[in-house]
């Protein structure tokens, strides 16, 4: 069994912390929550210390924060129906752009790997794709593929492919149609029996892990046209198949999942206050993979864990956020 050790407890937010995000360098953390602030923490010698508190861009809960791939921008999604873009052209983080258009709460925001696109999603059931022009963001498309509240959007690790998870129990994959520049739903992933809260691609982008209110994790594999195992691909489009369901491990809603691009480990954030780590078996068949639970940290927080994320540079470093108002940094070792 692996070991999860608490490195530091970061206290400062008032009320529930909804989300945390590592800077692409792995040296800073941004966190946000119901107190309508974004806090940026940096690693100073051996401790995490608060560097900046960003306020006043949002009038309601900040649900998610996301660093741009270059690390110079932060996007924040809020229940106030807007997304704020923070830059540091003046030397400090300032909000100079607000993206408006969603009818109600924005639940998630994600940057494409090239940094030229942003995706947002909302309780209004839509997913918006924003393109970055000359210092300006323009809405390129509004995708109405889901029938309910959309909880999460995330870009593929290296292609212009977008995934979204919804209260309608499905995950959808979107692709840009070259001749129309419109985003179309290339695949609908149906298997969960309740809200899908989050998802994460593996390092190749050919696999996805999703987590749900149905207390399961699911692993999905992409099959391209002409795949060697003979999985049919109607319309000559790749299809995603659920190749593994991890059930019986979580006792409540799983709010977040992250697939480490460095180590291949999967970490989950659960409503039973536990952080769990899963590892793929060494002899696992890609078409029928097996994963085992390698660590289960009871009482990782004193209330629901809302978010858990691997450091993009330092293997084994995890940051988590909870309803208990704290952010915690953990070290995982085998």
């Amino acid at each position, binding site marked *: 069994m692996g070991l999860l050790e608490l490195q530091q407890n970061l206290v400062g937010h008032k009320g*529930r912390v909804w989300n945390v995000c590592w800077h692409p360098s792995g040296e800073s953390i941004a966190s946000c929550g119901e107190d309508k602030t974004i806090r940026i923490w940096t690693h100073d010698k051996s401790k995490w210390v608060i560097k900046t508190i960003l306020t006043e861009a949002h009038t309601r809960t900040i649900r998610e924060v996301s660093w741009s791939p270059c690390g110079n921008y932060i996007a924040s999604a809020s229940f106030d129906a807007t997304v704020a873009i923070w830059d540091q052209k003046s030397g400090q983080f300032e909000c100079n752009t607000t993206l408006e258009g969603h009818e109600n709460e924005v639940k998630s925001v994600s940057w494409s790997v090239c940094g030229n696109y942003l995706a947002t999603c909302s309780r209004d059931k839509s997913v918006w794709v924003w393109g970055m022009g000359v210092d300006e963001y323009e809405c390129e498309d509004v995708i109405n593929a889901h029938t309910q509240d959309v909880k999460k959007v995330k870009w593929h690790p290296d292609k212009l492919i977008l995934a979204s998870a919804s209260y309608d129990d499905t995950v959808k994959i979107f692709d840009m149609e070259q001749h129309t520049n419109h985003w179309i739903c290339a695949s609908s992933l149906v298997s969960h029996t309740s809200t899908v809260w989050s998802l994460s691609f593996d390092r190749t982008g050919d696999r996805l892990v999703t987590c749900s209110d149905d207390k399961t994790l699911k692993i999905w594999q992409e099959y391209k046209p002409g795949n060697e195992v003979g999985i049919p691909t109607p319309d000559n489009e790749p299809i995603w198949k659920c190749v593994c369901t991890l059930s019986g491990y979580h006792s409540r809603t799983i709010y977040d999942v992250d697939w480490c691009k460095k180590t291949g480990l999967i970490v989950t954030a659960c409503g039973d206050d536990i952080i769990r780590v899963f590892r793929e078996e060494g002899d696992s068949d890609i078409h029928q993979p097996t994963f085992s639970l390698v660590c289960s940290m009871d009482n990782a927080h*004193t209330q629901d864990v809302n978010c858990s994320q691997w450091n993009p540079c330092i293997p084994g470093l995890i940051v988590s956020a909870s309803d208990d108002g704290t952010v915690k940094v953990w070290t995982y070792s085998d």
Partner: protein
Amino acid sequence: MNKVLENPNPKIYPKLEEKLGTDTECENIIRNTNEFDARGIFELLRNINDPEHPLTLEQLNVIEQNLIEVDNENNEINVKFTPTIPHCSMATLIGLSIRTQLLRTIPGRFKVSVTINPGTHIAEIAVNKQLADKERVAAALENKFLLTVIDQCLENTVQS
């Protein structure tokens, strides 16, 4: 509310004998955060006003002590409520009022679930899913209009 009532003549049930009448005793329910029981939780919820009628959820039999489960060891509280009629459009609002009252009075370590008494509402699954989604509950409680309505429902309840 000045519109036509959905259920104009609800059946009214007798109140439970007041075993915990005084303010001090009610306060004890909240202050004694180690041990909760169904009776104590019932006490926190019995005087919630119905959104339509000048009656409490106890008087309308929406809340009953025997539909409340408390597991102190595992920090779980499960409350089932019975809408007055199977197509009651107020079911979500009533559930939200119960949830809000418990959020305000019960320590955060408890996992609270509020669901419809099985078989008593046509949209049971949809209402239960919405009440269990803490993100949507949080967003609803940031809505000033909705919060005003909920506060009216909770004005006669035990306050934290």
